């Protein structure tokens, strides 16, 4: 029988996802895999699309700003700077436990994976709780229909909050999945959700940086 080799590997030497149904097998199969999983590319495409949408919002902010002599326009309150920037920084630190969770899952350490995601989730929930309260509070003084500045302010901030909410829901779903053990499918999901959070955290820094620039610059 012919010895068939595909890029230096025989068919039998290549990992099969359906064989990864416990942490030890998952860890072994993940180490045999070349390059990133299909799920990573899937989330990369989602992030590319979402990043384009969000940077269109940010581009709109600066476009409208370039057409307005005073920014924020007269009559609009200046945005807060210190608390939003600190909170965005705190949210950005959740990239660390998420990345560690991803690495722990790859190493087959299921309990550590769950704990790290819970840790990140607590911080993320704290962030969004304050931000939602603040958003409601701001709506009592100004509204998106006041002028173009307020329109883009609320759309940009609201869209960013939407991304944080989606990330939180993904983490809750991931924890529910990991509660039933580790499979290759769940490892891939952990990697994908981690990268989604890296994107959301970076995005939040850009969004808060843009909005606070009205006061700072």
């Amino acid at each position, binding site marked *: *029988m*012919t010895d*068939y080799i*595909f*890029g*230096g*590997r025989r*068919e039998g030497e*290549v*990992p*099969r*996802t*359906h064989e990864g*149904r416990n942490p030890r097998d998952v860890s072994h*199969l993940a180490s*045999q*895999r*070349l*390059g990133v*999983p*299909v799920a990573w*590319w*899937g989330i990369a*495409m*989602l992030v*590319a*699309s*979402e990043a*384009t*949408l969000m940077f*269109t*919002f940010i581009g*709109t902010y600066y*476009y*409208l700003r370039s*057409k*307005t002599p005073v920014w924020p*326009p007269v009559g609009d309150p200046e945005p807060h700077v210190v608390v939003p920037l600190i909170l965005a920084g705190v949210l950005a630190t959740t990239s660390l436990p998420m990345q560690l969770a991803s690495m722990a899952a790859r190493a087959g350490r299921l309990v550590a994976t769950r704990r790290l995601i819970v840790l990140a989730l607590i911080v993320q929930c704290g962030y969004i709780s304050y931000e939602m309260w603040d958003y409601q509070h701001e709506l009592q003084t100004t509204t*998106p*229909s*006041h*002028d*173009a*500045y307020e*329109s*883009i302010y609320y*759309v940009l901030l609201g869209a960013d909050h939407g991304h944080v909410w989606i990330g939180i*829901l993904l983490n809750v*779903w991931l924890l529910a*999945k990991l509660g039933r053990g580790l*499979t*290759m*499918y*769940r490892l891939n999901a952990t990697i994908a959700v981690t990268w989604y959070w890296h994107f959301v955290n970076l995005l939040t820094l850009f969004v808060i940086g843009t909005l606070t620039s009205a006061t700072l610059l």
Partner: protein
Amino acid sequence: MATVELPARERVERLEQMWQGKPGILGWLTTTDHKKIGLLYFWTTLVFFAAGGAEALTMRTQLAHANNNVVGPATYDELFTMHGVTMIFFFIIPMTTGAFGNYLIPLLIGARDMAFPRMNALSYWIFLTSGLFLYIGFATGNGPNGAWFGFTPLTERAFSPTRAEDFYTLALIFNGISSSLGSANFIVTMFKLRAPGMSFNRMPTFCYAFLAASFGLLFALPVLTADCIYLYLDRIVGTHFFDPAHGGSVLLWQHLFWIFGHPEVYILIVPAFGIATSIIPAMTQRKLVAYPLVAIAELLVVFIGFGVWAHHMYTTGLPTIQVVFFGAATAMVVIPSSIQVFSWCMSMVTGRARFKTPLLFIAGFIWMFVNGGLTGIMFVSIPFDQQVHDTYFVIAHFHYIIFGAAVFPIFGGMYYWFPKVTGKLYLERPGQISFWLIFVGTNLLFFPMYIVGLLGMPRQIYTYPGNMGWTAYNLAETIGGFLTAFGILVCVGNLLVSYLRGLPSGPDPWLGPTLEWATSSPPPEYNFAVIPTVTSAYPNWDPEDREEDVRKLADGVMVLEEGHEQPVVTTADGNFSEVIEMPHSSPWPPTLGLCLGLVFTFLVLEKFFVAGIFGALCLLSLVGWHAKEPQEA
């Protein structure tokens, strides 16, 4: 020999059993098979094409004579808006990427399905419901009427108080979700699911074209989505994005729309380039001239397309430096376009060209593309652009590109891959007649538009006085329009009759170079009994590799019959990385598509609470979707 063949047959039977979908309508509703989804796209887009064509013919009938009154001005506004939106968003893109891309790309790269089969099904169901959503608006007297580019302030609530523009904005956002999902799926499929050995430099040029279109959609559509969100909020919430009196900008709409809109033109035609680069090698029996340059040119066309948007805005008072920059960028598109035209022509001249119907359509496409391209280059001359802005000259150029360059290859591709999809040969003589009818009809339809445009006839007018010297040209255009429609009917009729009575085609009637011709016609649900060996960009012209496939089947290598198995490779080199388990059929994609449709319906009705309830149902559908992992199916 017999002892070797028996296990091979058993393996094939096992594959058939493993990949068999549900029977009947339930099977079509829950399918995740890329071929079935491709066919669903095909038939649905044909219906939308018929609707868009009927709208066009009604307009041509109205314009056949001066002072005609077949339809009034309000209806005419709806007709040209619906025609544009339908043909661009609900015919050409879903026909090329949805139908051709879905059916063919996994076959061309030696895969068994798309990277995300359920997401693939979801993109179809969203496409269908978004189309129904738009046409429900039209049928209920809320057809969009602000042209396909929906310029503000005309489309703001102050000037368009009905729900028509709400249907427009929400339909485009809704449809954009479908196209974004589809394009992400194509990119990942081509990056990761190629047969081991198919490195990037061995990937068919058809795939490069679809890769370029997918990247274009992925980065262009969010800009349109943002624009439509602003317009929807301006209309419903009372924001001021496009209201200069409150710090907004009318031109913001145009900038964002054309940042999307011009790449969109290339997104529409690049898949057609891919179809041409598939048909030409098969019909000339020679490798494509300058394959690497053509692959790069396909990507470059879309890339440069992102830097030319403001040439649609020369009459809006942009600063001269911007106008000059965008003029120069527009001129750059000539370079990758010309590389491809020379490659197609030289391949035909130096090969043994068989001018069967598919190649006739490609030859017609080259004529139309060069014609539309040459008049497009005229827009680089800024004073000329300003002079013919909003005249029929622009309509002529646009339709030479969109109908001539995008739709001709679609017809060519329908004939070319008909034997693969149906297992039958089409009737050659009626096929050639349909080509000549369509070719003469479209030129008669669109060429006089250049002349009336230069004579000053503006676009989007529902009638005109008899003393302008435009009547004869308009009558000729109308005759051309009906001739084209007749040609299309002959084409569809031919394919239907051939499907019912055609001779068996066998797996490879054209001696084609790519992998879809290496499997049976129509292909089985698992596409390939053995994941094919690939050592060149023309794998079906490598007989040793195809013989090796037969030996591999006998030896049980790369049959992957333990489940819905699919090999995954490294992105650039195509080295064998892992074997993944693909999902089976699923009820969740149509469920989610329906729930999303209801979300958008209640958004247009401004029933936000009910829309929220259906939004929650969407989330529950996603939970159901992921409840069962592929390896548990």
